[in-house]
């Protein structure tokens, strides 16, 4: 394991110290382990969080037009209720707080406990569950679909709604709508190594790829043979299409998993655009880059959302965060 760290146990603290130094406009609470701005009086507070190792998610999305606070857990480990509660209290501007939760048992349970504790303290808390990963069969007999790339869309769009004054119920509703309209699928070309264990999450052969991989190095649906970017994009989009027919106006993200160079993501995006156009769909907005990563894993995920004029407007609304910035 070669990593730019000081010690496996210090990764999160050191990274937060670095983040705080890099973004002096944001507050980093090292004690309670959250990154925040605000609170903004009268605005619904948005709190997300999850295991670290997915940067820029979530800390890089704190700022105007997006999150109010992010709670990073240890690498690939859910945050704990205490930090979620502290962040929730810190960003409550009197209009309640919305928790944006990726659907992993650990995240769900920890957020749930925090919400209960916050409720005990008289705060109004709602939560939106993100579960957009079509690689996992959605069944009542499993923990359900994982939350992946759709999280970026939910955080951006709910962020815009909250900034415009939507109330807690409305924020939750738009968050659920975004989630309902979003689907993701990921493919890994290499594995990753968690600093604490120093060993790869799974092993991939020289010509193998993991199809339907999760963002924690969870093995995917199946193991495949390396092929072209065009075919890989096709596999991902077919899987999405089978679940949510791809037509009309789309928001598309081609997301790097951490170890894949940007030039390859452009190549994938070309293939995605070609595929979707040939099916008669229109990409009206896009993101190409590293937004929700899995440490140094090579590969990419593709997330698609079916747009509406309202959602497009919220997507276009200004955002000023470390990792996403446009408008004013």
């Amino acid at each position: 394991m070669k990593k730019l760290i000081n010690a496996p146990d210090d990764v999160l603290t050191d990274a937060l110290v670095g983040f705080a130094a890099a973004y002096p406009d944001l507050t980093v609470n090292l004690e309670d382990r959250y990154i925040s701005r605000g609170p903004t009086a009268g605005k619904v507070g948005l709190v997300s969080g999850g295991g670290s190792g997915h940067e820029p998610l979530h800390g890089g999305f704190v700022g105007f037009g997006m999150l109010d606070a992010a709670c990073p857990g240890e690498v690939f480990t859910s945050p704990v209720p205490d930090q979620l509660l502290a962040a929730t209290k810190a960003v409550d501007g009197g209009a309640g707080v919305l928790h944006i939760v990726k659907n992993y048992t650990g995240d769900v349970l920890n957020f749930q406990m925090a919400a209960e504790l916050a409720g005990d303290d008289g705060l109004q808390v709602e939560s939106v569950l993100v579960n957009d990963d079509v690689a996992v069969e959605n069944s009542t007999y499993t923990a359900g679909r994982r939350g992946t790339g759709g999280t970026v869309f939910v955080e951006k769009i709910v962020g815009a709604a909250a900034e415009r004054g939507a109330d807690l119920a409305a924020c939750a509703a738009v968050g659920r709508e975004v989630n309902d309209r979003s689907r993701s699928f990921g493919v890994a070309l290499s594995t990753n190594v968690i600093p604490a264990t120093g060993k790869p999450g799974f092993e991939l052969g020289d010509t193998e790829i993991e199809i339907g991989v999760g963002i924690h190095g969870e093995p995917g649906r199946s193991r495949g043979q390396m092929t072209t970017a065009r075919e890989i994009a096709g596999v991902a989009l077919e899987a999405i299409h089978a679940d949510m027919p791809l037509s009309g106006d789309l928001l598309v993200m081609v997301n790097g998993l951490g170890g894949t160079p940007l030039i390859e993501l452009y190549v994938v995006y070309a293939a995605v655009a070609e595929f979707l156009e040939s099916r008669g769909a229109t990409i009206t907005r896009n993101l190409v880059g590293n937004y929700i990563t899995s440490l140094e894993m090579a590969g990419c995920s593709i997330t698609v959302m079916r747009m509406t004029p309202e959602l497009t407007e919220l997507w276009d609304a200004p955002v000023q965060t470390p990792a996403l910035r446009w408008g004013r």
Partner: protein
Amino acid sequence: MDTSAFRAWVHEAARLIADNAENLTRLDAAIGDGDHGVNLRRGFQAADEMLDKAEAETPGAVLQTVGRALISKTGGASGPLYGTGFRQAGKALADVTEVDVAKLGSALEAAFNGIQQLGAAHEGDKTMLDALGPAVTAYQVAAEGGADIAGATRAAAEAAERGLAETVPMLARKGRASYLGERTIGHEDPGAASTVLLMRALATVTAGEAP
């Protein structure tokens, strides 16, 4: 069992978990995300340290302190689950200062129910419940058959071990492992493995063997 016996249990559990953290992590790497040992070591170490400082003067207070510490420090799915288990067990003990065999049985049952309710898993889903369930049942059978605490907890630990073995052929339906579906068959569940350690620590302490 008095307050100090419960403290001893937690201490022994923290020690066993630290000693076996690598194995727990290895099991989790196979069907989860490879952090169960790291998570629990962090959580139980924090619980043990918090206990050293806390003025928990009843067995119930000890278990509730541990529960809060696990929730605060563990993270992952196992933190809230085990934390809730300990808290519910602590609540079941109320203000009792000397826990008898029946009372401990009801505390273990409360733990099981708390975890079951929070995680919404059932026995057979390949989770910690598949070790804890058999342990609670075996404890109660032994207790009803007249066993003392040492005997009942030994029965519980042995049953947990058998329960762990039975998770091997199961297909995971809850938690991170459920994403792997069929591929989980053939592996022990890491949470069931850590439950075995907790039960073994309890049996050790009640047998008077712990340091």
